[in-house]
């Protein structure tokens, strides 16, 4: 069996196992939907006023996408590692030809597919229930690339969290602790102007910032995005490498 074959086998089993867990599927898609409905349709943006949602509706498209790009891979990969560890699956996989990197790659691909579908749903919903008018340009074709690379990055981080924590509860708590500050301090829902001046440089330390900046440059405020994608891709490679190393192979 080739490397591609092993990754395909692992990804097929993982996706089949996920898609048959109806509640997991439902809430994976319901979570971003409810977020868009609450903030996009109920709270709404106030471009002429103050407060948190003071930017035009299109400004927040990266933020809505970031919710699934950030939260879902962190919790899904982290929980998957916890389940594998609790069920002795890594012990068995360690005696098969699949490597840790192949395992993580397979689960990353599954997450890219799931979160890609969720992102499409979010994008459509944002257009349907908010006043957002995304910029239509050839660059829009790069948006799925940003989503895929972002998902890969946070799959790597999720693997690290799953390896460091010792239970599924621990994974959820850790991923929420990591994701919440990242979500609001990465130029997603909170514009830099709302942050203290001394804190603004720290925003650049968040990988999600490059996702938000790049996708915003595509869908809302046209501008260069290659640099953001490059940084995001480099970070994704680094996080996946660290994550693959962190995937348990022994007790």
């Amino acid at each position: 069996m080739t490397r591609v074959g092993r990754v395909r086998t692992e990804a097929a089993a993982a996706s089949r196992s996920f898609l048959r867990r109806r509640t997991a599927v439902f809430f994976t898609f319901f979570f971003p939907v409810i977020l868009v409905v609450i903030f996009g349709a109920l709270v709404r943006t106030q471009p002429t006023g103050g407060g948190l949602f003071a930017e035009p509706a299109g400004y927040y498209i990266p933020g809505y996408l970031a919710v699934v790009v950030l939260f879902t891979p962190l919790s899904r990969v982290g929980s998957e590692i916890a389940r594998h560890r609790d069920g002795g699956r890594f012990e068995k996989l360690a005696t098969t030809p699949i490597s840790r990197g192949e395992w993580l790659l397979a689960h990353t691909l599954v997450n890219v597919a799931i979160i890609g579908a969720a992102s499409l749903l979010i994008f459509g919903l944002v257009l349907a229930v908010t006043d957002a008018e995304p910029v239509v340009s050839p660059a829009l074709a790069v948006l799925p690339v940003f989503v895929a690379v972002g998902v890969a990055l946070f799959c790597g981080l999720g693997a690290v969290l799953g390896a460091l924590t010792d239970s599924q509860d621990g994974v959820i708590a850790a991923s929420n602790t990591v994701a919440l500050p990242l979500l609001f301090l990465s130029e997603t829902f909170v514009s830099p102007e709302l942050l203290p001046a001394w804190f603004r440089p720290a925003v650049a330390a968040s990988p999600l910032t490059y996702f938000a900046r790049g996708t915003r440059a595509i869908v809302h405020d046209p501008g260069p995005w290659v640099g953001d994608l490059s940084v995001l891709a480099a970070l994704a490679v680094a996080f996946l490498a660290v994550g693959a190393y962190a995937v348990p192979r022994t007790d």
Partner: protein
Amino acid sequence: MNETAAASAAEGAPRGRGSDADPALVAEGVRRSYGDVVALDGVDLRVETGEVFGLIGPNGAGKTTLVRALTGTTDAEGDLRVFGVSPREVDPQRVGLLPQSFDPPERLTAAELVDYYGGLYDDARDVGGVLRDVGMADDADAWYETLSGGQQRRTCVATAIVNDPDLLFLDEPTTGIDPAGRRSIHRLIERLADGGTTVFLTSHAMDEVERLADRVALLRDGAVVAVGPPDELIAEHGGAPRLDVTLDGTADEAVVGRVEAGLAGDAAVESTRDGLRVRGVRPEAIGSAVDALDTAGVAFESLAWSEPSLEDVYLRLTGEEYSPRERAVRDEEAISNEEAAAAPDGGATGDDPDGGDR
């Protein structure tokens, strides 16, 4: 997961194949500690190719840790070799593992699970054939979660043999399986052994190990205290054949003395909760023992003669030997303590002589 072997496969190099001339397993001076707890304390083992090797020992003796060390899934000191190479360098195609505690991915059918694990190997057996081998062909399309405990375990065994391994580690494969299921697993192990597969089997079912294993090692406190063919271990450590005599009540010392006086040779008599146990009675001496009971005026309800077994070896070498008389005394003391503790004045402290994990 096997990084080295995966890399070797990618490079197309035959690394990790080892040699058929090498023993299947060699462990020399293997040690493993978890903090202050010593799980393995200098284990030496050698398993030849084609052997069915049984590993027995009490809970916590280090059996699973040893399996993990031999499969490269835990770090251990000492020399470990599988087909002549380190456990992490061996060609994974040659090794199959059923971990003791194993819960495969959810919401997959038995057939899908076997297909999944088979799909990770270069060469895998036909899924239907593997499921037939473990008696799961009729339930191939049932989700794993809906299977009974025994069916689940048999499915797990199927995932361990799907790559047709040369060396199969089965860590308590029949736990939770009903007698019919156990027999199908036993037949499977026998067939695999007949086909040349080396089987490393851990189990708490002594009859299973005695029946299946060519050689057995007994692990206690992380060290091998005995190793050899089951019949040799039984001959050396199992003690004498015994005749259990069921009476209507227990026998006092006077009865024990009278029966013992009527027996020939070095047979010894002890009181049990159900009556008497006569040790050292050969099959041809059963009649004489019955005569001795008759002469002593002992009316018995039933007789049961048995040869020593691997279980006797286990009990003796692990220090857990069952002594009916001592047990009866302990039980009576425990009851007395409970009654005293329940008394209005609080009674004695009530230490439980049977407490702890035996």
